[in-house]
């Protein structure tokens, strides 16, 4: 028991997988083991989208207290709307659509950084204000039309290889890459250093500005990618498609063991937390909970998990 506790303290991401396994076990116990595999794969399919935005949010949160990207839902929506409209259901235009959508996301990332850097606005307010502008652009450009994704994109977003969704496999590879970047590159180490002590990082000669710029741009690009894939998955872009992702992107990062005070990012935990969140909803559905009960339970369990994982003494 003490060994287990020590292990948990050393690798905070184990919490999220333990919680996910518990919830999965409970759900499987209720159904008598029927459909347990299907529950897991569908949680993986849905959870993958949360993981994409979670990776970006994790990088942002790791750069220190107060750094949160609230523009993720709006960026997703803008990217999805642009992608669907540029592709215009034609397979030949997929690459063009992806480029346009990611280009727009890139601009959002730059705007966020400029607001934070030049206007010295706290990141929460900067990304919040820019998200209003981004959302308006999406509404104005999309005109509320729902355009279907070209078949190859829809196939890519929904196809399964050996039971596993293809997108899940691709994003898993992307997660490995980001984990490597975070652990092994100058950029990744600088992100952590800034999060631990920005002034010390600056005095040590690290390029704080460039690192922060790259981080906000990466977060926007990942949100854009999620918007495109989500549009392919659910048969088109919708103006409210990003709504659920604001809470989810922050929750998976924090439940996944990334330090909210910054300085310590964690990639595997994001997967565990995303699985946990979707398995939780599935379990509550199986129990036949009403929407109100489901909301209350989701909230209480998020609070319980963060309480159990515990905060940490902030180094000042």
């Amino acid at each position, binding site marked *: 028991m003490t060994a287990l506790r020590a292990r948990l303290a050393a690798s905070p991401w184990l919490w999220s997988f333990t919680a996910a396994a518990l919830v999965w076990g409970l759900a499987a116990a209720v159904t008598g083991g029927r459909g347990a595999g299907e529950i897991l794969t569908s949680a993986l399919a849905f959870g993958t989208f949360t993981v994409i935005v979670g990776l970006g949010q994790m990088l942002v949160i790791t750069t220190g207290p107060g750094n949160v990207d609230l523009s993720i839902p709006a960026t997703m929506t803008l990217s999805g709307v642009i992608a669907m409209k540029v592709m215009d259901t034609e397979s030949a235009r997929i690459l063009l659509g992806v480029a346009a959508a990611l280009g727009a996301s890139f601009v959002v990332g730059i705007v966020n950084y400029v607001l934070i850097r030049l206007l010295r606005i*706290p990141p929460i307010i900067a990304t919040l204000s820019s998200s209003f502008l981004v959302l308006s652009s999406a509404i*104005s450009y999309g005109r509320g039309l729902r355009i279907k994704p070209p078949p190859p994109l829809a196939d890519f977003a929904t196809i399964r290889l050996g039971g596993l969704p293809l997108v899940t496999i691709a994003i898993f590879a992307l997660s490995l890459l980001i984990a490597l970047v975070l652990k092994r590159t100058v950029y990744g180490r600088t992100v952590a250093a800034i999060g631990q002590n920005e002034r010390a990082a600056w005095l040590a000669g690290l390029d704080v500005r460039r690192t922060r710029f790259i981080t906000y741009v990466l977060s926007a690009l990942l949100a854009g990618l999620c918007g495109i894939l989500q549009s392919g998955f659910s048969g088109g872009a919708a103006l409210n498609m990003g709504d659920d992702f604001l809470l989810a992107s922050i929750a998976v990062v924090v439940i996944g063991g990334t330090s909210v005070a910054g300085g310590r990012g964690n990639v595997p935990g994001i997967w565990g937390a995303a699985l946990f969140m979707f398995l939780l909803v599935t379990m509550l559905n199986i129990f036949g909970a009403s929407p*109100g009960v*489901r*909301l*209350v339970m989701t909230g209480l369990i998020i609070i319980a998990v963060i309480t159990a994982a515990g905060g940490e003494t902030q180094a000042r």
Partner: protein
Amino acid sequence: MINPRLLRAALPFLSLAIVLGATFYLQPRTMSYFGLNLMLQYAVPIALATIAQMFIITVNDLDLSIGPFVGLVGVIAATVLNTDPALGIAALLACIIAYGLVGALIHLRNLPSIVVTLGLSFVWLGIAVMILPSPGGKAPPLLRTIMTFSVPYVPFPIVAAIVIGAIVHLALMTTSFGVIARGAGGNPKALTRAGWSMLQTRVIMYMLAGVFGLLSGLSLLGLTTSADAHVADRYTLYSIAGVILGGGEFIGGRVSPIGAVVGALTLALAGAFLIFLRISPDWQIGAQGAILIVVLAMRALITTREARS
């Protein structure tokens, strides 16, 4: 050269004056007792929610659950409070105590307030949906009477805003508890070493936020007359923006109650202003974001000068 510090304190009032002036210019008929009353009627609940958020920001936390909380209060007051007043009052008091407990939990376990209150927002919304699955209920007649109360010469929302601002200003800026509370945001370690209980301070600030969230919900219900669990979802963002527009800072206990009320009035007016501007509804939200950015840009300029002098 104007003193940058003074300029900074004047900025919230300046922003309000500019938005008000622009509104009068676009639609001169609003420059009347009646017009102001109509444009500002929702300023009271927004101002109260902003004050609630300000208490939390004072101790360096952030409350992402205030919007759904305001909605829940409205739902309880429009249903339970009518059928069983004793139970209704008990439920509302329990909500305030719950706020205090959350403050204690955040303090004792050193948890990130953003995540805890994000989870809490689901709890409030869930309870509200359980009590009232679809919009309905009825405001208690007393609330209706208070919110439609008319004062001669000066519109009621303005009187209410001044009273709210003045009371909170006196409590937070002039009393010794206020100094400790703001100090809790400025330098909690120093205050702990000086023998003050940070736990107690935080719990009181969270409960105060609960009280003002409660008042916000009741005043909103008095205006809308029927309740909806989702009616105040936007209040979370409004309240944060209001505090910041009013000159507050996210960390360091640097807040201003009067500024926060003025910030809330500016936000409430900005909605009316944008309608008079006849910009496409698509860009309504975007324009609000732009206003926020412009005000913050002005403040950044002033702060740079303040740092230099």
